Every structure is written in C-alpha cells, then in structure tokens.
C-alpha cells in the first residue's frame, strides 16, 4: 500500500506548530549511595501533527521521558524544544494524560475540566463554552454534573482526555492512557482518540505497552530498551488512517516489534510459527 502522509488525509487538520525535538537527553535519579541512569543519549524529532507511539519494557524510562517533556521534572541533561523553544516547567502548550485519570473526586466532571482553565485570561462564558465543547468532543454530554466515582473507567479516562485538550495544547503526551481499561473499551477509545487527533491536528506522543495499539494509531513506533533507556528501533507505519486492524502490514510490523522487544531475531520466530502451523 502506498504511503499517505497524514497531512494528506482528507479532514485531517495539520497545524504547523507542535514540533517536539529531544536532543541527547540524559536523566538519572540520585539515591544516597548510588545513581540510577534512566535515560541515556535519548534523541527524537517529532513532526508537527505527527502521532508517535513509544513502546518498551516497563522501567525503561518511558514515563520519566514524558514527565520531562511535560515539564514536571527539570533536572536532566540535553535539550527539549517545542517549535524551537526550549521547554522550561509546565505549560498549557503541552498536555499530559496519565494512566490513572487523576480527576479530583470532589469536583464534578465539568469542574474538573474547568480547573484546567483557571490560568486562562478569558471570559467566564468563553470558559464555559470550551468546557462544554470538550465534554461533547469526548462524548460525555449529559454527564457534566457527575462526580468521577459515578463514571466508568473509560468515561473517566475520556474526561481526563477532555481536560488535557481543553487548552488546545500543541502537543498531547499520553502515558499508557488506556492501560487500565478492559480490551473492548480500549479498542473503542483508540478509535475516539484517533478521531480527535484527526480533527484537532495536534502532535501526539503516546506511550503504550500494547504493540497493536501503538501500530494502529502511530505514524511511527519507537521501540525503547532499558538500562539505560534508549531507542533501539523505529518503525514507520506507512498506512493511511483510520487503519484496518487486520492489515497484514500491521501484523508483520507487530512481529518485527515484538521480536525487537524480546530481543529474538525475526527469522527463528517465523520458523517457530510455521512449525506450529504445520502441526495443526
């Protein structure tokens, strides 16, 4: 199948902003008696409007990486820029969705989303409209006054996505956003996230441990390895969105990534599969 850049997909708005550049990132945690090197010489360039998926074994520094980009942690070596500007601290231009929804239990859904707008110098009406629009965007109309404990896991995660989008960030960082959800809800929300991405055109960097999810959504899949965390492999997914989950290309890429993750060369893996197939 020919590669269709996402910028040419009908209906996909691509903004000219949202280029994220990571150069030579080194991050370590210092303990009393030792230091833990978490990221080493990590470099990655993400194009405006691109969807990059990151997969890697747990503990390889994926969450740490997103926290650095988000500005929650400023102690690292190397440079992180957004549209050429060095990032320092948190900013409304960079949104972050955690694996747990992190909604405040004492606030209604709309109050939770409105909290994200407390630093915006816009009128009350404009804020209310932004909140309402984003609740509608994630399909939660009618639940404005609901408290988080009244929402299902999937709904709460949608609410968290709405909150992270309400400031229309140039880049949205997602840290295993669907990791805690059941398989069916996950598939459903993947579709929703894709629809939102195609409509909004912001850059997305998503961490996931689900290789299929990474391939289904990503323009590019980055594979990391641990100790220290670094990129060992990059896969371009030259398929238009939305994709056919059953596509043979995706399956071949999945095998390639899984092989990389388990550090087993690709060929023996295929042989094993062939033999198994013969047995049946």
């Amino acid at each position: 199948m020919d590669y269709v850049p996402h910028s040419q997909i009908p209906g996909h708005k691509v903004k000219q902003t949202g280029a994220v550049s990571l150069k030579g990132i080194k991050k370590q945690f210092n303990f009393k008696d030792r230091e833990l090197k978490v990221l080493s010489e990590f470099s990655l360039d993400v194009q405006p409007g691109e969807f990059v998926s990151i997969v890697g074994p747990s503990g390889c520094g994926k969450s740490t990486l997103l926290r650095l980009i988000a500005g929650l942690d400023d102690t690292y070596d190397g440079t992180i820029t957004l549209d050429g500007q060095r990032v320092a601290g948190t900013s409304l231009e960079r949104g972050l969705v955690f694996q747990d929804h992190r909604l405040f239990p004492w606030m209604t859904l709309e109050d939770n989303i409105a909290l994200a707008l407390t630093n915006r110098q816009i009128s009350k009406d404009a804020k209310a409209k932004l909140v309402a629009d984003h609740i509608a965007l994630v399909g939660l109309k009618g639940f404005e006054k609901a408290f988080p404990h009244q929402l299902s896991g999937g709904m709460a995660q949608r609410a968290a996505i709405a909150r992270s989008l309400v400031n229309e960030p140039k880049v949205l960082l997602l840290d295993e956003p669907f990791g805690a959800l059941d398989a069916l809800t996950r598939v459903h929300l993947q579709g929703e996230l894709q629809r939102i991405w195609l409509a909004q055109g912001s850059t997305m960097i998503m961490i996931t441990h689900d290789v299929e999810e990474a391939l289904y959504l990503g323009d590019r899949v980055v594979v990391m390895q641990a100790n220290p965390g670094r990129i060992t492999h990059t896969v371009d997914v030259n398929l238009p969105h939305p994709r056919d989950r059953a596509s043979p290309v995706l399956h071949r890429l999945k095998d390639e990534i899984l092989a990389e993750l388990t550090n087993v060369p690709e060929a023996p893996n295929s042989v094993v599969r062939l033999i198994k197939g013969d047995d049946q």
Partner: protein
Amino acid sequence: MKPDLKLILSVSSPLLLLIVWQAVTAFKLFPPEVLVSPTAVVAAFGEVIATGELQRHLSESLTRLAGGFTTGASLGLLFGLALALSKTVEQVFGPTFQALRQIPVLAFIPMLILLLGIDEVFKIVIIAKAAFFPVALAAYDSVKGVPKSYFEVSSLYRAPWWVLISKILIPATIPNILAGVRLSLTRSWLVLVAAELIVADSGLGQMMEMGRQMFRLDIVMVGVIVAGVIGFGLDRLFQLLQAHALRWKTA
C-alpha cells in the same frame, strides 16, 4: 433498613440500661444512698431545672467549652499546617510536639493549678490543650498525605496558588481535619467536665461535685446523664456538619 426499625434498634439499648437500673434499685442490690433510682433522678432533674441551677452550671460549662475549644482547635489547625508545610517548623517543633501529645491532659492539671490558679484562664487553657492536639495532628497528617499527583495536576494546568489551596488542598484535607476537630470537640467536653469536678466554682462538673459532698447522688446522676447527652449531642451535631461538608462522597 426501614427508618422506624432503625429508630427502635437504636433506642433499645438505652432502654434496656434503664430497665436494668430500675430493677437493680427496686431490688435494693445497692444502698439507695449509693445507687439512686431512675425516678429519684427524674425528680432531681425537675428540681435543678426549677431552681435554675442546671441551666446556670450548664451555660457556664458550654461557654468555657466554646472558648477553650475554639482557641485550641484554631491554634492546633494553624500549628499543624505550619508543621506540615515548613521544614524549619517541623525540625524545631516536630519532636516536642510528638512527645507532648503523649501526655494525658489531666496530668497537666496540678502544674497548671500552680501556674494559673483555679481561675477561668486555667480551665480555658486545659480545654484548649485537649482540643489542640487532635486538630494539629489531623492537619499535619492530612497535608502530608496529599498525593503528589494532586500537585502535579495543578502544576500541569498552571493553576494559581489560591486555586491550589481553595480547590485542591482544602477539599483534599478537609475530611481528615474535620475528623480531628470532631475528636477534639469530644475530648474537650470530657476534659472540661473532669476539670470542673476537680477545681471550679461553677459548671456541670462542679454541680456534680457539690451534689456528692451533700450526699445528693440523684443530682450527681443528673450531671452524669446531662454530660453524656451533651457530649453525644455535640458529636452528632458535628457529624451532620461533616456529612454536609463531604456531600460529594455520597452524591
């Protein structure tokens, strides 16, 4: 459970207690000078109300409680917050605080009498001391216990500090702080009645002490019952306030 059944169940144990009490006195298991009958207590209750004695002592006690509790609880709140938010305060006062709170309030009474005499100040101080520690401890623990993730979310959206305090820190800590305040209210009342029993010229405890000295055990029992009912009522009132403040939990 049906509300009327709930009511029946909740009054059943005090009722049983009353029946046992009446039976014990009817069979004269104890001399009547030691254990008076419920009917005698009802009569004494009527008497102290008619003379206005109960009202006078009770209002004295409640005024003291209000003064001491409010002082102690507010100071406790401020101190607990300072202890949790400032490293310096924690280093300087932390160990002393942890040690002092282990000493029972009543153990301070002899020393405080020497220092302050038995005037009003003494009673206020002793109640304030009782109210101070549960609130201080609750405030300290709950602020220390605010999850880091709350601060991170606030930082991600660059919420101004007053939003952080009013919309995040206060709601996050209020359940535990209120529980501490409730405990301190009950403690204050217990300590107040106990302190009045030992030294006072007025108040519910003193009414009981005077009754004891005059062998009016019926009046002592009136005091015991009123102390219990007031303590129970204060706790209940506070519980309602707590439920109101924490509506979101059950909404």
